[in-house]
């Protein structure tokens, strides 16, 4: 596979042609914050946390959907970008009811740890406090819309890996919700295979195992890479 070279944060690095900026960064241990990107799923560019500065581009570009190109000059952190990332996190916290103290994913939450990492210590915007419900109709799992970030990892993993497409999004704008089938209770879903992949990839406590209490819900998404390599690179060929 052809190799390209580009500059990330004043360092010359190599990347495989066709890789995104974010993948190239990860290969060189440069950490970029993100909530919607997940290795193994299609990139979406929705959370806007992985925005980077690319010399010559008038706008900040999402690293997850922008292809790394030869001679590109990328800056992943500067005062403005870091400030914007904190503000975007503030908006995310203000949107729904992220009450860490009573959340199943407390201390195991990607949103929470990103906020700590980026130093977001207060929210200056009005909390929107939407009235959202909790669906525990499924035998093993539950969905709490109060914690949902609309990262749509669940939608993508269900469609792209499991192939069931049980999840999708309804409505638009701030009224968007993730739904199962025709917006029926999860437990009534005919297409759901109960595989639980959506629960494992969810960055917050929006999707959880039933019966887990505060801070008990630990998730592990690394299985994805393994089964996808097995499938796509034919490592598991019989």
């Amino acid at each position, binding site marked *: 596979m052809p190799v390209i070279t580009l500059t990330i944060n004043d360092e010359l690095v190599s990347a495989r042609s066709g890789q995104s900026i974010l993948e190239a960064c990860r290969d060189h241990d440069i950490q970029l914050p993100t909530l919607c990107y997940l290795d193994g799923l299609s990139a*979406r*560019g*929705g*959370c*806007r946390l992985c*925005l980077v500065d690319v010399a010559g581009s008038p*706008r*900040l570009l*999402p690293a997850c*959907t*922008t*292809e790394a190109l030869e001679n590109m000059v990328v800056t992943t952190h500067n005062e403005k970008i870091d400030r*914007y990332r904190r*503000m*975007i996190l503030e*908006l*995310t916290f*203000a*949107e729904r009811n992220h009450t860490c103290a009573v959340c199943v994913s407390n201390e195991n939450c990607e949103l929470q740890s990103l906020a700590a990492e980026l130093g977001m210590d207060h929210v*200056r*915007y*009005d909390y*929107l406090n939407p009235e959202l419900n909790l669906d525990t109709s499924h035998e093993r799992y539950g969905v709490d819309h109060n914690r949902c970030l*609309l990262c749509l990892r669940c939608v993508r993993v269900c469609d792209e890996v499991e192939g069931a497409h049980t999840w999708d*999004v309804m*409505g*638009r*704008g*701030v*009224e*968007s919700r993730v739904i199962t089938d025709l917006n029926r209770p999860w437990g009534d879903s005919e297409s759901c295979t109960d595989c639980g992949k959506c629960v494992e990839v969810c960055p917050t406590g929006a999707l959880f195992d039933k019966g887990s209490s505060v801070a008990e819900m630990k998730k592990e998404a690394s299985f994805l890479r393994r089964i996808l390599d097995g499938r796509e690179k034919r490592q598991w060929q019989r």
Partner: protein
Amino acid sequence: MNPTSLAEQAAQELQRQEQLKLRLFLCYSTPCVAAGAEPVKTALEELLAKQDLAADLEIVATGCMGPCSRGPLLRIKNADGEEQTFEKVTPEQAKEILLHSIANQPVETTALPADLPFFVRQTRIVLSNSGEIDPEKIEHGIARGSYSALAHVLHEMSAEEVCAEIKQSGLRGRGGGGYPTGLKWNLVRKSPAERKYVVANGDEGDPGAYMDRTIMESDPHRVLEGMAIAGYAVGAEQGYIYVRGEYPLAAARLVKAIKAAERRGLLGSRVLGSNFNFRIDLRIGAGAFVCGEETALMTSIMGRRGQPVPRPPYPAQSGLWGYPTLINNVESYANIAPIMQQGADWFAGFGTEKSKGTKVFALCGEVVNSGLIEVPMGISLRDIVFEIGGGLPDGGKFKAAQTGGPSGGCIPAEHLDTPVDYESLKELGSIMGSGGLIVMNESSCMPDVAKFFMGFCMEESCGKCVPCRVGTVEMYELLTRITDGSAMLNDLETLEQLCRLVQETSLCGLGMTAPNPVLNTLHYYRDEYLAHIQENNCPAGVCQLDQIPLLKLPEHAAELAVFKEEH
């Protein structure tokens, strides 16, 4: 049809029209029909049948004539080519006009003066057929040269030459962005692919803009011809027109026009006797402003949720179903045929150095002559509002002109002499946009106008990216506080910072431009914002201002009923 038979039919139709003693053009576009054009038409037709005049005259139900607020409009043209236009015509007046004109007697109803600035200050290129033809009769269009540019292009020019000609004309995208059309065509032409598409964006969602609707309703063949030329130039055999769901008449007329053109071999396979095949299909939107954004429009054509996707890759590289796609605004396509007919240099003779040609505006709001106008680029705003528009009614004082809809801004009185072109408007913090131009008088409150547009963006945000989905709601909350009296001075700072964030980090054009009306009004009318916050006063008298800031609650507490009861 081939080019020769096309020319023959044009001559034939022209001859028929010249033999008529009198032609009556009745504006039959939506505003005039709403104002009562239908009974006028019925009355005229009855009279025609009763007096057996069908051989001598014809009634043409045309597209938009322009001064929509004066409808229903009726124009008569006698055999000598003399024309008279009448406004606000009643069925009785129409009958009188017809009877007196056919008998060569002076008409009693007063006609609009022929030198009305509304008419003489305009330059009609895009709208040259609008108001002159019955959009449902293809012969009328052919008589005025429809499809002759396509015939010329298909038989005399190479695809490369067509792109070069468009590039030389200096035409820029009329949807708002102003990207050079010729460059875009060349990009798509050079993209190697087994299949390519041409798309016309007729999803005109800006509130206060209806230019594209009028073009599609008044002269649909002009758009189809432009698309076919584009198809030939970039190497596409399939085109789509995406029409806004709110425009059923435009959709119906386009369907008819496509069928009529296909029947005559002007579209379909082996167009005009050449080896070029081109089909056009209609797609009807279902009510989502964001679908005016090109990538969202394409996902909508593919039958999905109309959410934008990050660019690059640009549609010219990977668009519909992953194939290179040329996407232009309806008005851009409507400029193509005249350019190919009369040459790039002729077109470049209109307008300014960087903005060539003309622009169609929907002039409305507080203005005497509201309606649809086409003016050369570079005309001053003052000429548009006070000459063509006739100034403000009831002695109103001009406060601002809003352009560009929810992505644009308000231009204050001190900049009335700015030439209207892409760069100048951008410098003023507004944009050309698709062409809505709304005049406001002193009774409009600027923070309230900004809130109105933010409310619009909030409802129309698709919800894909965080800054736009949540940011618009938070900006709306802050503006609500300013207009209800509960804002503090630091809210203004929070608002401005948030505006910059949303502008710079949103995924698509909707989010990037959503803060424009706020930033622009903050720039020109900051004192109005400050009056709301510091003096609890709305200078325009629009806002109620009946709330108080949360932090100020203690000092007011004694006055509040709730607290009185508790204590």
